């Protein structure tokens, strides 16, 4: 079976969060993007967990060819990481400097998958940790005409049947259907494996297959955005905290008294 894993390069969300916690996160002069000179870029963690699910399906004894695909000017590092983890093929799609919205990204990925022999299973992270939108996988499934199952923590393939364990508000749910299908992967998958030093060395020699938008038959007009990011801002938090001071027993009593007076407890 052919498994296509879609991976995106994002700003390290922990680094962004640390800047935010320290009050050092800034919006650039364009008013739309973050000032991120010091923030490393890496593979979207949910997408890496998508790779992990693909590898677990292979570990379970299924013969499969795993293809990792990314859209970006410079996605070599994250694609090589996927190769080191065990991807058989890595594919870099050049967006030709276009700013793609989710719909356009889904169009590009669908065009690539259709033109490259299709996929029995498409795996994506549940969302990218930068825009958090989570709509590309669903749009992609629609364009491929296949069902989408969201928020998986595990997936099993048996013949042409796919069984997915999904995280829901009420606990785990297992859904079954036929391949081909698209599955989005949630962080409950757990910590993904690390590549070995040997596989990292081997991955260094692996060159991504370069794909252009024109090669996919897509023009800038086909990919014109219908959603435009016009502004980015930092949330305003109303800091109005009353600090209770004193020995532990004293502050504890004060707090409970306050909460009772407020009618909270």
């Amino acid at each position: 079976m052919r498994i296509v894993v879609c991976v995106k390069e994002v700003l390290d969300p922990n680094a962004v969060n640390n800047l935010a916690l320290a009050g050092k996160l800034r919006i650039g002069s364009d008013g739309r993007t973050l000032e991120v000179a010091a923030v490393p870029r890496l593979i979207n963690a949910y997408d890496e967990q998508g790779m992990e699910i693909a590898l677990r399906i292979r570990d379970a004894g299924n013969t499969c060819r795993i293809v990792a695909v990314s859209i970006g000017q410079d996605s070599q590092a994250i694609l090589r990481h996927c190769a080191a983890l065990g991807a058989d093929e890595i594919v870099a799609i050049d967006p030709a400097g276009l700013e793609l919205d989710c719909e356009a990204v889904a169009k590009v990925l669908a065009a690539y998958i259709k033109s490259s022999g299709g996929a029995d299973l498409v795996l994506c992270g549940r969302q990218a940790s930068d825009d958090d939108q989570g709509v590309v996988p669903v749009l992609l499934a629609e364009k491929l005409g296949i069902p989408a199952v969201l928020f998986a923590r595990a997936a099993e393939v048996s013949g042409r049947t796919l069984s997915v364990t999904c995280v829901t508000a009420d606990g785990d749910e297992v859904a079954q259907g036929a391949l081909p299908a698209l599955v989005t992967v949630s962080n409950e998958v757990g910590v993904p494996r690390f590549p070995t030093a040997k596989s990292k060395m081997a991955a260094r020699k692996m060159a991504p297959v370069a794909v252009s938008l024109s090669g996919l038959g897509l023009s800038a007009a086909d990919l014109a955005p219908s959603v435009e990011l016009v502004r980015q801002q930092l949330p305003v938090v109303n800091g109005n905290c009353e600090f209770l001071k004193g020995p532990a027993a004293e502050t504890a009593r004060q707090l409970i008294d306050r909460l009772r007076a407020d009618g909270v407890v």
Partner: protein
Amino acid sequence: MSVVVCSWGNVAERGIEEVLTAARAYSVAAGLPLHWAVAGMDRDAARALASRYGVAAVDAITHPKLQGFAPDALVEAFTQYCAKAQPALVLFNQTAASRLVAPRLASRLGAAVVTNVFALQHEAGVLQASATAYGGDTQVVYRMPSRINVVCLVPTTLAAEPAPSASEPACNQVDVDLGAIEERFKVSSAPKPEGPRLEDAEIIVSGGRGLGKADNLALVRDLASALGGMWGGSRPIVDEGWIDSSRQVGLTGKVTRPRLYVAVGISGASQHMAGCSAAKTIVAINKDPDAAIFRYASYGIVGDCLEVMPELIKAARGG
């Protein structure tokens, strides 16, 4: 042209009143009637709620295949509905289920779609949607000039405000043809909800990495029980394996809106706050006086949570 809210399942679904409130405000700004399309729902209950929130019409879509959560049938039903109704804006109450249905519907309609939205503006005739990004560390404003847009609203930070005067909503029966629809994925094992849900709790005590080690969670549990509430935790301690993800409060976990939220040893990362910032009162206990959590808290105690919690348990139990 209209603004339409699409729902299914339980009429009294959490967040629906907040979504109807935001939908009404936008429909007034855009000068469009507000419709509520309800699939497989109790139409009388929906009509009563619709009246309070100033909805112009309830469009009831009924079909045997719309019982429970049936995504293929729902997407097809809403697609047929929208093809006739030609709404300018289609709104969903954001849940795990609507995160599947909304983009699929958008794709069928050739509409633009945005999720994680907490505010809608009508700017010079064009929809602008404000959404969270980077786990809540930033907020982005999307301009959506399409003829038709689909938006998932996160009700956590929205307030429910009934309309100044109740409406007399029309009740329209909508017929759909779902003959060809067969669900492609079927649920073979449904979750068994175990007791009360964290999402519904009035009082929550949550622990974070500041507890030091998993054993100290016992204090969090005891404090929750002393306050008559439930307990949860932050994502780092889920990733550490201290607690199961069903207890995780945050963007990718449970989104709660309790009366009281006590955060113990939690730094206050945006990812976490997305799951608790709607709490009426937040209490923070943290040894770092600069922790972000104090920016959200009404009451703060700077100190060692392992010393403070036993005293809090005593004080809560006494008197």
